């Protein structure tokens, strides 16, 4: 059992938890992820490592409620436990493998969308700790959906916030901010790291390709084991098929086949929709899903 030592709602439907997992805390690096299981009948849910405290032996996760599993997870409180908490999985971010001195000469831009702000944060923080200020663009649907603003402000060089509806700071998509910075303000970045919804990463990559700005993305395909055993997480990168859980999750965004990746992510949508129904309707759920036998 892995105890939740801290749990809070960051904003509507986005939750942060610190979980006691000493082995993971000891060996994890920015860019990696964990898989958590709620209870006996739960799914294996992959979540990016957002922060860690090696001394306290805790790992921070931030998640958005999407379907049945994440909605149930959201109900967990401080003092509750996850049945399983496996990791760290995947490769550490390429940035931290690079030589610090050569990194210091680079101008780095992070682009975070929605809950993707959470996985961007540890990388920005890691750079700050190593004396490097990176620029960060954070995009959110609306002001209420913005997370980790204070934390990010401390860690980032310049922080640009934009909301789709203009309810806070800039108005518009993250791509418009990139255009503004690179084309209008003439800032020359050496590399971009974009993490967020698949569709955002796709459009960021289309733009940065035009701008000739190398871009790394962190993919979140459907996963089961997270150790390379099932192939559920396969994605096409260039002309190769990669397993995101072991070869990634970070890849060269200009080579990723986003259209295929987005289609694959939808694979269980209808199935899972039924799960949500079951959850919302509780005991009054009366079948039609073909699973519970209620219709018979």
């Amino acid at each position: 059992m892995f105890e939740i030592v801290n749990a809070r709602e960051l904003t509507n439907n986005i939750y942060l938890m610190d979980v006691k997992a000493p082995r993971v805390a000891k060996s994890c690096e920015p860019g990696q992820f964990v898989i958590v299981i709620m209870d006996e009948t739960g799914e294996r849910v992959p979540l990016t490592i957002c922060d860690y405290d090696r001394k306290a032996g805790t790992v921070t996760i931030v998640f958005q409620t999407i379907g049945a599993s994440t909605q149930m997870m959201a109900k967990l409180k401080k003092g509750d436990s996850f049945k399983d908490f496996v990791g760290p999985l995947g490769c550490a971010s390429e940035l931290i493998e690079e030589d610090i001195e050569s990194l210091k000469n680079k101008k780095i831009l992070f682009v975070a969308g929605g809950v993707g702000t959470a996985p961007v944060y540890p990388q920005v923080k890691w750079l700050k700790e190593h004396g490097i200020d990176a620029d960060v663009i954070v995009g959110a649907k609306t002001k209420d959906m913005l997370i980790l603003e204070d934390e990010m402000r401390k860690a980032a060089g310049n922080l640009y916030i934009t909301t789709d509806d203009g309810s806070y700071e800039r108005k518009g998509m993250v791509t418009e901010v990139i255009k503004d910075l690179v084309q209008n303000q003439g800032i020359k970045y050496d590399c971009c790291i974009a993490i967020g919804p698949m569709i955002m990463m796709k459009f960021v990559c289309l733009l940065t390709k035009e701008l000739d700005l190398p871009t790394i993305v962190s993919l979140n395909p459907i996963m089961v084991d997270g150790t390379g055993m099932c192939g559920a997480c396969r994605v096409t990168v260039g002309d190769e098929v990669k397993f995101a859980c072991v070869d990634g999750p970070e890849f060269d965004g200009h080579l990723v086949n986003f259209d295929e990746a987005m289609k694959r992510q939808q694979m269980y949508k209808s199935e899972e929709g039924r799960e949500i129904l079951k959850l919302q309707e509780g005991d009054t759920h009366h079948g039609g899903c073909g699973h519970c036998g209620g219709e018979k």
Partner: protein
Amino acid sequence: MVIVSKKVPVREQDPKVRATNFDEVCLGYSKEEAMQEAERCLNCKNPKCVSGCPVSIDIPGFIQEVKNGNIEQASKIIGEASALPAVCGRVCPQESQCEGKCIVGIKNEPVSIGKLERFVADWARENNIKPERPAKTNGHKVAVIGSGPSGLTCAGDLAKMGYEVTIFEALHEPGGVLVYGIPEFRLPKAGVVAPEIDNVKALGVEIETDVVIGKSITIDELLEEEGFEAVFIGSGAGLPMFMGIPGENANGVFSANEYLTRNNLMKAFDSKYATPIITGKKVAVVGGGNVAMDAARTALRLGAEVHVVYRRSESELPARVEEVHHAKEEGVIFDLLTNPVEILVDDNGWVKGMKCIRMELGEPDESGRRRPVEIAGSEFELELDTVIMSLGTSPNPLISSTTKGLDVNKRKCIIADETLGKTSKEGVYAGGDAVTGAATVILAMGAGRAGAKGIHEFLSSK
């Protein structure tokens, strides 16, 4: 003495009924049936059957005890050589091992060694016969990576010798392929696998799940920081292969590992569990091994029409004869001498069919099997909504790539010696599918046993 020419038949669930449930297909012998079958054994002075068993169970020895109705004694005899008899009795390819060598089998059906072993093991479990925990440990710590048959056997053997053993398992349940791969209807998890794992724990073995060696901690750290004096690697051959044909990343194409894991480990067939699975109405399983049969029979039970697509002919099917027979009885359709060339995809990215080509058998290849060759112009389309690729697996490089000085061969298998499991790195032993590539439960157990012997020799000479 006149030998009854046929095995005492074993009771099975009716094919029509079992094709709709996940309960075990084979119901096993009763005590009377087992004693009757035991009568067919000649108690050979030079028992050929034993030479066919990779762990050399004293087969005539335990069968004589069954003949006398002394099942507890029979279970002790099996227990000396095998830690997982209820599993092996169910899944060993007996026709090519023990039973394949049985003298009775020359003129008649061989003695039903597997079913007898299974009966004894089930009886022992039902009657709560448990292995005894050694009185005290010798204070030496050994780490075992992976809780499949090789790891469990190695850990059990070492614990019996007095070692303090911890198994590290990447998944959330111990058991390896026994839990995530082989389906419930062939190997019940709660009824058979879990108690066998409990027996290993009863010997004092600790199992720590959710630890991915190479990620959570490395072998070098286990040896240098956590006080383990030796390590056994039994990490299996879990990486699925794909064909590399167009359309393979479409929605509705799965590896057999994913399909089986969702069902077995994650229990997607049980509505209490949150795991989703695509059941499909018409499913093709590509491949012809045990894994393909398991995937096919699982899809069938989830309600699909299932085709096994295999490029050679029936006599080359690598699966156990019993599994092929069961699959046919249940209604799996075999499209033999057929090879996929492309998966056809609809506008939404979902599988809508598979383009195949007919094959014929040509000259034998290096393996001695006749090589399948394409028949020009024989392409045709199968209409489908799900494809399950079951083309074999290779070892996971997670461990070899993070352990200094551990040599692998060109197939990524860890190089280890057969009799003692010794690898190129001092104190590190290995066995099972991680060394041989995908093989069998009993070979993995034999390798676990060899590794335990190797580790014992190494630590006692230190």
